[in-house]
Structure formats: structure tokens, C-alpha cells
């Protein structure tokens, strides 16, 4: 009986923890919203986020008070040439986490008045075809960061590098 209670408590704590870890947007889970600190002189930034819709949805837009305009962009390498293109939406297949990340999709922040600084947070509104709009808080990581906690990586392999070794 005690054991049952313990496992029930564990399950409850776990459930609480998981729901707290990802803000719920209608039916879309939003996790790891982060942006890169902007180098001095830059007016353009990029924000990234991981999304998961249990039933399938589509990210169709974004806005934030820190930028005049926020657009969904893809970045591809075509024969060694880097190309960024605005996309109308990013599909979220049912149950599959979709990560916007360096070298893939990003939320392009254009006309950022005050360059984003490491450690800063700012609000971002994401718009979904079915789930509507949801606000999320974005944490600013280092300039050129490959993700929360990551230090650097190959230009095509975000998150795959081994941690940098200091000598």
C-alpha cells in the first residue's frame, strides 16, 4: 500500500514537472524558446523553439515587441551557398517534436532596436493554424550559440559536437 502511494506520488510529481517544463499552447507544447545574443551592429536576430502538437498543427507566424518584424525563415545550403528564405508556415506533424534550430528553420527577428544581450528574456507570440496564438518567454543565449547549454558546433550539425575542451 505504501509502495502504491509512493508510486502515485512519483507519478503526480512527474506529471506536474512535465507540464511545467513546457508551456501549453492550446494543444501545442512549446519548449526551449531561445535566441542568440546579437553581435554589436547587427539589427537582425534569430529565435528558436521546439514545438510538438499531439494532433498536428502548423506554425504560421510570430511577433515580438523587440523586433519590428518577425518572420519564419528556412536556411539551406545549396552547393556550398547559404540561402535564407521566408516560409509561410512550418508543419507540425501529429506527435512529432519539431525543433527550429541553427542551420534549419528560425524565427527571423528584423529591425531589432536594442541588440539582444545574453541572459535577457523577451516575450514572443507564436501563431498556429489551429491552436491560435500563444505567448512564450525567450531566453537569450551567447552570440553564435547552437542551443541552450551548447557552445559551438559544425555549421551543419547543430547539437552534435562534443563539448569544447579547454587547455
Amino acid at each position: 500500500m505504501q509502495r502504491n502511494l509512493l508510486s502515485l506520488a512519483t507519478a503526480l510529481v512527474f506529471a506536474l514537472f512535465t507540464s511545467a517544463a513546457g508551456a501549453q499552447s492550446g494543444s501545442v507544447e512549446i519548449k526551449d524558446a531561445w535566441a542568440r545574443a546579437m553581435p554589436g551592429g547587427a539589427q537582425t536576430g534569430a529565435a528558436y523553439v521546439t514545438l510538438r502538437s499531439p494532433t498536428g498543427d502548423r506554425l504560421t507566424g510570430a511577433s515580438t515587441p523587440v523586433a519590428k518584424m518577425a518572420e519564419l525563415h528556412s536556411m539551406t545550403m545549396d552547393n556550398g551557398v547559404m540561402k535564407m528564405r521566408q516560409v509561410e508556415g512550418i508543419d507540425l506533424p501529429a506527435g512529432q517534436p519539431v525543433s527550429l534550430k541553427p542551420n534549419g528553420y528560425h524565427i527571423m527577428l528584423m529591425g531589432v532596436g536594442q541588440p539582444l544581450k545574453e541572459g535577457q528574456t523577451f516575450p514572443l507570440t507564436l501563431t498556429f493554424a489551429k491552436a491560435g496564438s500563444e505567448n512564450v518567454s525567450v531566453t537569450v543565449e551567447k552570440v553564435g550559440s547552437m542551443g541552450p547549454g551548447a557552445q559551438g558546433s559544425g555549421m551543419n550539425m547543430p547539437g552534435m559536437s562534443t563539448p569544447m575542451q579547454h587547455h
Partner: protein
Amino acid sequence: MAVSSKARREPEGQRLVKFAALGFLGILALISCVLVGIASRHQAAGDATGSLTGQIGGKFALVDDNGKPFTDAELKGKWHLVFFGYTHCPDICPTALNDLSLALNQLGAKEKEVGVVFISVDPERDTPAVLKSYVESFGGPVTGLTGTPQEVAAAAKDYHVFYAKHPTAGGGYDMDHSAVIYIMDPQGRFTATFGPDDTPDTMAARLRKLLG
């Protein structure tokens, strides 16, 4: 259509058309062979074979992020990593410069033997002042270069770098651009490239080998 109906009536004409077509195909095949040859030589560039030494790089006259003239002569005397990009690029340019900075950090005392040159392909927006605060954000020995559109075009041509303006819906523009990092030796000669699969670790290992 006119050709084929005419050829049906005149057998010599038909032969002529066939001959011309064969000749045309032959020329196409020859051009393809040359192009494939050039492409494979370009692909070999990453192997540090030095086969493209003298073909990549060359004379250029730009200005640095202090507004001072900077020519290819400045590349002599130490190793340089040359990358073309622009400051309105939020993704690959900061990634590349950050990776280079992390790689150089791993070189210890040898870090001083390597410089990084970031050449803007967007001289309209990237003035020396804009570039200065941009490159300083990455720490390390990064020099930002810009110039007139013609000067930048000439430098890009020397380095076989492609770039093109791509208008965006909001009235602004992005730049498509080659994202290769060139390794130039202390004589200013092309030595090897870093490509999309390189990480700070592989870059540092490569540089250690080259620096000896």
C-alpha cells in the same frame, strides 16, 4: 516543325540536320566533361592538396573595420581564415565566426599565428563602423572588411565566392552567399577549406597540423 517537314522532303537536308545535331551533342558532351572536371577539382579543395593554390585568392583592395585600407598584402606574415558573409545574417555567419573563435581558443599560444578575415558581401549596409562592433562581439582576431560594391565583387571573384541579393516580402533583402572558410598560409596562398561539416574541434585539429 518546319525543319522536320523540310528534311522529309530533302534527304540531304535531313542528313545535314542529323550531322548538326550530332555535332551539337558532341560539343555538349565536351563542355560537360570540362565542367565535371572543374567541379571535381573544386571538391578536392577541402583535402588540402593545394591543387587550387594560385586559383583562389588574389589581389584585393578593401577597407577594414577602422576605415583603413586593407589589401591582400596584409594577409602575409601569418595564417588567415577568410570568410565572406554579412551582419544582417542571423544564422550561419555568427555560427561560423563563433566556431572559428572556439577553434582558435583551443590553439593556446599558437592562436596568435592565425587571423580571421570577415569580408562583407553586403557593403551597402555593412559600413566599417557596423562591422567593427560586429566582429568585436566574437572576441579573437577577427577583422571585418568592406568596400565599394565593385571592390567587394572583385574580392569575391578572386575567392570564387558567389553572392546575390534576395528581396524579402517586407521590403528588405537577404544575401545568398557561399559559406566556405578559406585557410590561407602565411604567404597568402590558398591552402585548404573548412566546410559545413567542420566543428570547432575538427577545425582546431586541422589548424594544429597546418601550423606544425
